C-alpha cells in the first residue's frame, strides 16, 4: 500500500525512526515558496531509508541523492520550477520523527549540505570537487 501524506510511519525494523511525508511539499504548486517533490511518496520514503542507511547524516539532518548508477536524478522543483536534485530530511524536534523536502542550496543557505557529506559524495564519484566548492558558495552547478 503506498505511503500517504501527513501520517507518521514507523520504519522499524528497517531503520529505527518514524517518517512523515509532509503535504507542504506535495502540493501541485509551490506553497509559501516551498519546494515540491516530483518523485512518488514511496520513492521519497525509500530515498530517506537509503540515505539514513548510508549514514549521510550530520546531527539531526540527513541528505539524499536519487541515483541511476552515478547519475543524480531530479527529485523536486522550486516554486519557480527549477530542478532540484538534493533531498534534505530533518528530525526537527530531535525525537526521531523525520520529514523531508527537496533542498534548494543555491537559494537557501540552510539547504547546503555540510562538507563531510559532500566529501563522501565526491569520494563516491557522485559529484566533483568543482560541485563541492560551488555548492558551498551557492553557485549554480546543476544540483
Amino acid at each position, binding site marked *: 500500500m503506498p505511503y500517504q501524506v501527513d501520517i507518521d510511519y514507523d520504519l522499524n525494523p528497517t531503520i529505527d525512526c518514524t517518517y512523515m511525508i509532509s503535504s507542504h511539499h506535495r502540493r501541485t504548486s509551490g506553497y509559501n515558496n516551498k519546494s515540491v517533490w516530483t518523485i512518488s511518496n514511496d520513492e521519497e520514503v525509500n530515498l530517506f531509508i537509503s540515505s539514513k542507511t548510508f549514514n549521510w547524516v550530520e546531527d539531526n539532518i540527513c541528505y539524499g541523492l536519487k541515483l541511476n548508477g552515478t547519475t543524480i536524478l531530479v527529485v523536486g522543483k522550486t516554486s519557480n520550477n527549477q530542478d532540484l536534485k538534493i533531498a534534505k530530511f530533518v528530525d526537527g524536534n530531535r525525537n526521531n520523527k523525520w520529514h523531508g523536502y527537496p533542498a534548494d542550496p543555491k537559494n537557501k543557505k540552510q539547504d547546503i549540505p555540510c562538507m563531510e557529506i559532500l566529501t563522501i559524495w565526491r569520494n563516491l564519484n557522485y559529484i566533483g*570537487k568543482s560541485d563541492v566548492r560551488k555548492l558551498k*558558495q551557492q553557485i549554480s552547478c546543476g544540483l
Partner: protein
Amino acid sequence: MRPVKITIYGDYFDCQIYRGRLYLWTFDGILKVFNWNDLVQSFIKQETDRIAMTFCFMDGNYLYKSSLIELFNDTDFRKLLIKKFESVTKTDLSVKEIKLKKFLLGSQDTPTGFIPTDTEIYSNKLYFITDKGLFSATAQRGKNEKYPVSSRHTKLWDCSLLSIKANKYPQLALSGGNEGLFELNISRSKPSNLKRIEQKYPIYQVSNRHSSFSNYTFLSIYNTSLIDQSFIALFKWNLENENLTSSIPLRDFDKTVDDKEIFKTKSNRHFVSWGIEDKIYKATDNGFEIIKFNNYAKPEKGESVFTRLTSVNLHPWKGNVINGSTAYFGNIIECENALIVLQSDKQSLTIPGPITRWRIYPRSMNYENHLHVILDDRIEIYSFNHDYFLNQEQKEIGIQFRPEKHRRIVRTSYFDDFDDNEDLPF
C-alpha cells in the same frame, strides 16, 4: 604573450601563496606548506632562464618600477625581455607532488579539521571559513615550529559565510548570502555609522542585502549577488565627526549604489557584475561592459564617480557567467564550463573545466601576476607577463598599476633583503 605555467599534480581543494610559501589544501583535509622560492628555482635548468623565472614566479612586481619604463621604450631591450619570457613558456614545468617532499615546510591537519570553504592570508594570519563560522590562525610560522600554521585557531564569528576577501588595508569583506554583507575591520579606523554585530571582534554589518562574493574598490566594497541586484557600498573618510578623539580619520559608510544605476540599465534581467579597485564590470551575453570608478571624483567640479569606458565583445561564453574578478594582467571570468582570462593586451586564454577553484593575488607584493587554477588532478600556476609593457593609464582591461601602491612598505622586491620578523602592511 602567452603565460608561463607551473603544474603540480595532486588532489587539491584550495591554495594560497604568501611571502615565499605555497599553501595547498588537499581534499582529504591536509594542509601542506611548501617553500615556493626553492621550488621555482628547482625548475631553472639554465642560467639564461633565471631572470625570466624570477620575474614570472617570485617577483611579479619588479618590472612595474617606473625607472624601467625608459628601458621598455628601447625596442631592443623590450624584445630581449619578451624573448626570455617566451623561452620559459616552452619549458615543461610540471611536477608530481611526491617529488615536492624536499620543499615541504610542514604538513598538518587543516585547522578545525574541516576543509575550509574559503581562505585569505593577511598580515601573517590565515583567515578561513567553514560550516561553523569564521576563524583565524597564525601562519608563516618559523621553520623550527612544528606546524607552519598554528593548530590553535580562534573563532571570530559563528555566521555561515560564502566567501571572504581581504583588502590591502586590514579589512576583510565577509559575504553571508541572504544574511548580507559584513566587514571584519581590524584597522585603527573604525566606522562610526555601521552596526557592530559581534562584540568580541570588530565585525560590522555593511548591508542586509544578499551577498555572494565581494571585493574592495579602494575604500569601498563592490558586492556581487548571483541571485539579486549587486551594488557598491561606498565608504568615505569622515574628518568632521564630533566624536573624533584622535587624529585617525573615520572610514564611514556613505551609501549603496545599485548596479543598474552604475550601468544605467532599465532592464529587470539579472546580470553578474563585479568590481575591484578602479574598474567595475558587467557580464553580458557575449562579452562585458567596463565602468571606471573614480574614488576621488569631485562632483562639484563636474567629475563623475562612474564613467563608462567601453564594451568588449567576445565569442559566446562557455556557459553562463558565474564569477569574475580582475587583476593587473586582465579579467578572469568563470563560466559554467570554463575559466576565461581576457588579458590586458586583448589576447585571451581559455582553461576548460571543471574548475575546482581559482585565485588571483592583486594585493600581493610579489604574486600579482599569478593565476592559480585547481583542476581535478592538479593545480596550474600561471604567470602573466605582458602587462609590464602596456601603458597603464590607457589600458582598458585590468587594474591600472599605480607606483604609489608600494610607498608604505620596506621591501618591494624579491631581490631586496628582508627580515621575516618585519611587520608588513599586507
